[in-house]
């Protein structure tokens, strides 16, 4: 018989755990919960109960400090002190991402991929077996639960396509599930179907997901775009809509930077306004090289690009060649994502530094990025959403003056001049 119980809410978790009396009161209250745990809980919005094998999610569990302190025998309060400081889940900017740093100097320029090979082919050849794609046909109302359940049992992704109406006037959906190549697909589907209580296995077909297929579709999305008046970013395989304008031809492959993301537009417009001719540019986080190459076409003298992704390096080199810029105009460097090697650039060397990455690396690398600029040089950073602007401005205002924030569609760009 369910007895009434009070759930003691405490405003501060610290006081909750430090006060033994409070804890005892709560623990007696909470033990009553145990009696109800076998009732069918409505977990539709949390994960459905896993009846037998629990699938481990594909991403490996990180061995963090919180894990080791959670072993039985260690004090629970220390683990919870961690949680209370939310280091278990939320990131503190000082201890997470490692700063990028450049590998040893000298000839770190990567050979450009030959122009005939599409970037997509590079990517597909480097990978091993491709993923398995399974299409399952089910009635519309259970598609959602089945998709959630499949995710729990090891699917990498589930995609529910719109319902169609079949001859029995029942809505039918098709779920396309992707599995990693080493999984036993039949077993996972069987567990998932069983856990949502379906009587019979729905029909399904397995095939190998063709990598070329989706890579091609990704590249098809790319269209010519006019970022500023007289400045177009055009896919390599398209004809420039305005031959008289400055046209930057791009084949980004799978690197970031096609010109239509708001952050790229913000940076490109900023470069358009700030390049007078003859500058030496640093593009930190170069991706496809779009910012450096556009800067060179607008009038800069030399550009250097840094990225941690080897694909970005080859993409940037290839794009430079497409635009008839040889390697003395654009040099790209591959950076390691650890703090070890200092970069080969001297400090206070560049007239303009632009960095379109993400908030955490920007905050970690603030000194490095601003130190690359000459005193009086211009710096612009982007890749941040408007909520993150305050942190970035606070951090960069230490080294920059005349800080200005530009916004476009929820994204922002922070620019300033290096203090003398």
């Amino acid at each position, binding site marked *: 018989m369910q007895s009434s119980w009070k759930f003691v809410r405490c405003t501060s978790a610290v006081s909750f*755990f430090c006060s033994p009396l409070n804890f005892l009161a709560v623990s007696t209250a909470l033990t009553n919960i145990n009696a109800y745990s076998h*009732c069918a809980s409505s977990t539709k919005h949390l*994960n459905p109960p896993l009846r037998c094998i629990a699938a*481990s999610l594909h991403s490996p569990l990180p061995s963090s400090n919180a894990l080791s302190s959670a072993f039985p025998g260690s004090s*629970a309060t220390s683990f919870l002190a961690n949680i209370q400081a939310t280091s278990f889940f*939320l990131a503190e900017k000082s201890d997470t991402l490692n700063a990028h740093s450049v590998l040893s100097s000298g000839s770190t320029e990567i050979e450009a991929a030959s122009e005939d090979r599409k970037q997509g082919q590079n990517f597909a050849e480097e990978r091993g077996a491709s993923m398995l794609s399974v299409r399952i046909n089910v009635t519309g109302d259970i598609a959602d639960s089945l998709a959630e359940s499949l995710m729990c049992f090891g699917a*990498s992704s589930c995609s529910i396509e719109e319902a169609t109406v079949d001859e029995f006037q029942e809505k039918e959906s098709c779920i396309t599930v992707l599995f990693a190549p080493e999984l036993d697909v039949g077993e996972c589907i069987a567990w998932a179907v069983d856990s949502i209580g379906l009587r019979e296995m729905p029909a399904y077909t397995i095939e190998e997901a063709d990598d070329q297929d989706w890579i091609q579709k990704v590249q098809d*999305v790319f269209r010519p775009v006019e970022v500023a008046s007289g400045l177009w970013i055009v896919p390599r395989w398209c004809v420039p809509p305005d031959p008289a304008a400055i046209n930057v031809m791009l084949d980004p492959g799978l690197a970031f930077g096609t010109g239509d*993301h708001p952050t790229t537009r913000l940076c490109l417009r900023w470069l358009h306004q700030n390049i007078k001719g003859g500058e030496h540019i640093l593009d930190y986080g170069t991706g496809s090289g779009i910012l450096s190459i556009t800067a060179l076409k607008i009038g800069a003298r030399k550009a250097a690009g840094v990225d941690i992704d080897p694909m970005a390096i080859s993409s940037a080199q290839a794009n430079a060649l497409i635009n008839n810029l040889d390697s003395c105009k654009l040099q790209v460097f591959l950076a390691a994502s650890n703090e070890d090697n200092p970069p080969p650039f001297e400090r206070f060397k560049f007239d303009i530094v632009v960095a379109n990455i993400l908030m*955490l690396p920007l905050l970690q690398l603030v000194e490095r990025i601003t130190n690359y600029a000459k005193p009086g040089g211009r710096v612009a950073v982007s890749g941040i959403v408007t909520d993150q602007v305050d942190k970035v401005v606070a951090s960069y205002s230490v080294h920059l003056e005349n800080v200005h924030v530009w916004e476009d569609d929820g994204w922002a760009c922070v620019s300033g001049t290096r203090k003398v």
Partner: protein
Amino acid sequence: MSKGVKEKQIGALIRLVVNAGQAKPAPPVGPALGQHRLNLMAFCKDFNARTQNIKPEVPMSVTVIAYKDNTFDFTIKSPSTSYFLKKAAGIQLGASRAAHETAGVVTVKHIYEIAKIKQSDPDCQYMSLEAICKSIMGTARSIGIEVRRTLD
């Protein structure tokens, strides 16, 4: 409906698990979203920017709604309850026979803390904290994790 606002047709609903801050145009994100002609780069950049406040390598559930005009919206949810429980118990996998063997142990304090994180999930906002706790304990039971009052 005001003039000029067209309702977008939904093409597909895609569920994914992506590590926070680590979305890349590679499997599983690539094939799953690329098949529907969505702008992969925009998704990766957007997702990474919005999960900057979460530790990298924490797997986040993402639900992407792809519209027929190749635009998309997505919502990011907190990781699954079983992930939190396994992390709290310090184990990698749940029990293979949940009712018969115990894979790990957590305390009620862990449950409380996990419930607090889950409460900010859009799906759970109408639930009371005790209901979320009950739910978490049900999941713990089903993956073979025992819940105790203290660890001694």
